[in-house]
């Protein structure tokens, strides 16, 4: 017997089920119209914040709303290819909000949307120019001498290079979230560049940057049909306001890429992709070798087990390369690349575990 079909149909159940279905159909129709018209966009990146530092397009935000019980401040360094609001996607479903409510002093270093003025921005510009200044501003604003530096995706590479390449970095904790170091493991999109089938110059447009739609196409081609499954799931859950809002916010973010500065892209392809130089433990930057093992402080290597953008094998070698072996810890999380920002798994696993680790390695309240 099919367990989903009750043996005796109760008229009361039937009526309440009918009522529920009618109600859901009305909600489906309303949300469907809103979705198609695009008239009900959910707010993203809504946690209140102040801009505490700004240079060119880079901004350092300090989030409000918590009672800032723990120090040092947590400075999140975002990636160069996507928008930072993935870590503050929606009220009630935001990593930044979660950290802030836990009593941490949270800052976000957002790179903005590069244009032709940023085409000459190389990795040195980010690691040796923006980062030291932004972190000095975070230290000054918070009154702490040290910082907890958390880099997401490519932002983790910048954070690790900064922490390793600056003797005066004063990074008490370095958190690398889905941070690739073994670019041989980065999958199809990177293989095109690694094998020389595409040259960086062929991807750079007249602004001197890699256009955002080229990056979007690259990510889209990793799983071109999943959108069908996502839309079908949306249709089934269209009656649920919260689901629709979450879906819309996520869909907005996944299409909202930013151009990649040309100079940094050329370096990334030559050094990180073709030479896979991070795997040597050392990278030339600004005329000096930066040794990843020189990172002082605690290192947390956080990776998502079902990440198809930065697969776990590309992240795992952090445990052999970055910082002092005695101060390295690994955190494996169920979920995909965005588990650091959103989703059921983020709320259940990522946010509590990350927050717990940071608090454990912070100063306790007086």
């Amino acid at each position, binding site marked *: 017997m099919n367990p989903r079909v009750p043996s005796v149909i109760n008229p009361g159940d039937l009526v309440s089920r009918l009522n529920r279905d009618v109600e859901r159909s009305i909600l489906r129709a309303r949300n469907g119209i809103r979705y198609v018209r695009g008239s009900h966009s959910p707010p993203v990146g809504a946690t209140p914040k102040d801009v505490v530092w700004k*240079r*060119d397009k880079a901004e350092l935000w300090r989030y409000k709303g918590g009672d800032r019980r723990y120090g040092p401040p947590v400075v999140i360094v975002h990636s160069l290819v996507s928008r930072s609001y993935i870590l503050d996607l929606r009220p009630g479903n935001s990593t930044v909000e979660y950290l802030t409510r836990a009593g941490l002093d949270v800052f976000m270093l957002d790179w903005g949307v590069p*244009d*032709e*003025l940023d*085409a*000459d921005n190389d990795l040195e510009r980010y690691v040796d120019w923006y980062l030291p200044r932004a972190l000095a501003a975070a230290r000054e604003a918070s009154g702490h001498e040290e910082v907890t530096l958390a880099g997401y995706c490519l932002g983790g590479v910048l954070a690790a290079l900064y922490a390793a390449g600056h003797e005066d970095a004063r990074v008490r904790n370095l958190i690398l979230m889905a941070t690739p170091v073994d670019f041989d493991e980065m*999958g*199809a999109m990177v*293989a*095109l560049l690694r*094998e020389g*089938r*595409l040259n960086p110059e*062929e*991807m750079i447009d*007249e602004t*001197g940057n890699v256009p955002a739609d080229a990056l979007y196409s690259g990510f889209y*081609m*990793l*799983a*071109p*049909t*999943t959108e*069908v*499954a996502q839309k*079908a*799931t949306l*249709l*089934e859950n269209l009656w649920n306001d919260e689901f629709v809002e979450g879906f819309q916010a996520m869909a907005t973010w996944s299409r909202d890429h930013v151009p990649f500065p040309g100079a940094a892209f050329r370096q990334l392809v030559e050094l990180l992709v073709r030479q896979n130089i991070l795997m040597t433990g050392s990278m030339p930057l600004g005329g000096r070798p930066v040794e990843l093992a020189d990172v002082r402080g605690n290192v947390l290597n956080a990776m998502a087990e079902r990440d198809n953008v930065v697969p776990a094998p590309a992240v795992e070698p952090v445990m052999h390369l970055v910082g002092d072996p005695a101060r390295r810890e690994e955190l494996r999380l169920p979920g995909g690349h965005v588990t650091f920002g959103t989703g059921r798994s983020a709320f259940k696993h990522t946010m509590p575990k990350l927050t717990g680790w940071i608090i454990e390695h912070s100063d306790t309240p007086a």
Partner: protein
Amino acid sequence: MPANQPLWLRAVLRLERAIGEPIESAVRSDTYFDLVSATTRARRKVEGAAEGLSRRCLHMLNLPAGSDIRRMRQQLARMERRLNQLAHDVSELDEADVRSEVR
């Protein structure tokens, strides 16, 4: 796949995987990589040829072409970058002076 999903949704998800998996492995194949690089190069070549032709025509009429404007925008961007950098350097020097005076 959760058991409480309706049949139609389960069927769609299964179908999506049945079609999606071969496509995903196809876009990771050498043939696809070759196709992408050949298409990119061909598109660049066609764009370059069309641009060269329109540039010659416009120059014959003593009009600026898109590539001239682009070059000018790049030069302006370079200049603006240098000015921004100088402005940052000056403000940092000022801040350092203020700090040393306060001490």
